[in-house]
């Protein structure tokens, strides 16, 4: 009996809240769900940590809850049911699968929870906005830099991300684009090392045996794998090291660039993708009088805030080279 009473009270409270919102009254605090595809990687951790530093989160204007999708679309879809049931004010979504994520967004928006996309694109025109970086371009930048260091000729190997995911496919597309512009450069091998440094090290060791000294460049679809391949090159005693480049800008890669072992890392800006997404969500909930609170909008002249309602915010990639690597290392501390 007591339980029923409690439930009824809770329901009334919830209804009250709903009315309050629909009446257009401003809330003191907004509950934002952070539906991320998985929390194991360093990148998503940086993204989550950046969110915790957002001025709106610190001041209590936004209350965020992380939903760990555990690298499964089904898991993410289930979590959106919870997000809808708990009546979150908005969700920020990093999908594991951009195509399947479209239906999830539709469900959420129809149930009254607006969705802001971040980091990975989702195939849907119902999202409030998407803030992320173009993976095709990142692959292209890696390809261009390595080919340039090779003097525009020779053979390369490509370390691919997990088969069938959107990110690796797009990064691969960009790499092929760079190769198409330099038809003299041949791809000797292209195989997955599943984002893993250790797997890439084994793979590269084997390739160094089967291709002796024919490998002139290494394309890593992420930094972890580029670092693994680099370690194999170093342990085989090859001097100078084969030019290699990766994507993400993780700290180990930045250090390797600073030591001039790795050519470049194409750095993805977790801070901007994360904090920018929250500003966009709050602008959508509060209205035009909301002014963005994050510092990230001052970073890129080519990505202005506007009035916070653009459909696409394309966060530029930053090339980490020996010239600026130390700056990034200092920022980390």
């Amino acid at each position, binding site marked *: 009996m007591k339980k029923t009473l409690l439930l009824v009270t809770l329901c009334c409270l919830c209804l009250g809240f709903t009315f309050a919102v629909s009446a257009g009254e401003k809330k003191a605090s907004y509950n934002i769900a952070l539906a991320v595809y998985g929390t*194991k990687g360093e990148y998503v951790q940086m993204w989550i940590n950046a969110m915790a530093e957002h001025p709106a989160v610190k001041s209590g204007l936004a209350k965020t809850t992380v939903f760990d999708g555990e690298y499964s679309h089904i898991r993410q879809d289930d979590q959106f049911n919870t997000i809808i049931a708990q009546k979150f004010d908005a969700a920020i979504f990093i999908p594991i699968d951009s195509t399947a994520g479209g239906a999830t967004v539709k469900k959420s928006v129809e149930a009254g929870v607006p969705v802001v996309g971040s980091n990975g694109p989702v195939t849907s025109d119902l999202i409030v906005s998407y803030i992320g970086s173009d993976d095709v371009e990142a692959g292209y930048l890696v390809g261009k830099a390595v080919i340039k260091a090779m003097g525009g000729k020779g053979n390369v190997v490509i370390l691919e991300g997990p*088969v069938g995911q959107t990110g690796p496919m797009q990064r691969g597309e960009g790499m092929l684009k760079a190769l198409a512009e330099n038809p003299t450069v041949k791809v000797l091998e292209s195989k997955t090392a599943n984002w893993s440094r250790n797997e890439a090290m084994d793979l590269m*060791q*084997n390739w160094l045996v089967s291709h002796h000294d024919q490998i002139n460049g290494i394309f890593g679809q992420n930094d972890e794998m580029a670092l693994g391949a680099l370690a194999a090159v170093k342990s085989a005693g090859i001097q100078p090291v084969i030019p290699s480049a990766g994507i993400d800008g*993780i700290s*180990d890669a930045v250090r390797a660039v600073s030591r001039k072992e790795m050519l470049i890392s194409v750095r993805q800006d977790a801070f901007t993708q994360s904090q920018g997404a929250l500003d966009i969500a709050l602008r959508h909930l509060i209205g035009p009088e909301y002014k963005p609170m994050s510092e990230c909008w001052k970073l890129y002249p080519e990505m202005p805030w506007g009035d916070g309602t653009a459909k696409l915010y394309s966060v530029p990639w930053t090339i980490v080279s020996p010239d600026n690597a130390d700056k990034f290392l200092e920022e980390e501390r």
Partner: protein
Amino acid sequence: MNGTSFNTRQFFQKYGIFLVFIVLCVVMSFLSNVFFTSMNIRNILMQVSINGILSIGMTFVIITGGIDLSVGSVTAMAGMVGASFVAGRHPGPLVAGIGMGLVAGILAGALSGFIIAKFRLPAFVVTLGMLSSARGYCQLYNNGMPIPNLSDEFLFIGQGHIYGIPMPVVIYLSLVVISWFCLRYSRYSRYVYAVGGNEKSARTSGVNTARIIFSVYLISGLCAGIASLILTARTTSALTQAGNGYELDAIAAVVVGGTSLSGGVGSVGGTFIGVLIIGVLNNGLDLLGVSSYWHQIIKGIVIVLAVLLDSFTSKRSNS
């Protein structure tokens, strides 16, 4: 039945998997002219060392009829713990990094073993729980971030050489020899086989079965701790997502090596061959430039074929 034919069958039963390995090597050396080079053989041994060490612990566990699904996560966790003592600008002494990594592995194994032995829960469930918890702890330990900047003496474990032999290979081969002797000649090993063969009759004949079961998970945890040192030193950072799926590679190697999943049968020598078969296969398919898709299909087929052949020869000799 005359003596010679009996011996042939026994030979096949005992060394069938070894023949599979020889055939695989011969095929590979025909397909790739670099397969049989000292450089490549060193690479193979290096690449199998981590899976090999995990498989040693797994062999003990599976002989008792159990299973340890947590080894991959425990490896990652022990790596984080160990690395944290030798990281940064003022790293601690090498012995702290090694010691704490091993302790973390042993504690995780001991906890699983205690719960399995004390409360008689299925090992599958308990170690599945440990798989998840250890991975979570791994992320909790350093707020989800990797631990880079490890001291050079620690990195030596994964990257150094002794008389031209890589350290991981030195460690792995010594562990194979030690555990081979232990499992062949010690009284302890007879209890391990007895528990796996028939736990009830082992107990009635006076074996402290709970203690034996507890001990094999502890050994598996210790092996995960040792593997973590190599893995962390090889990748130069402790990574939270390291060791994902390693448990399945270890189980595959043990089973290919002729250890029965129902317990009571198995050997470290067999597991060694099982580890090599999987290692040679991975290496060979990379050398031949086989695509990722086919790589997985072929690997799956060879694992099943090897066990099929093994069960075929042992059934024939039993009848």
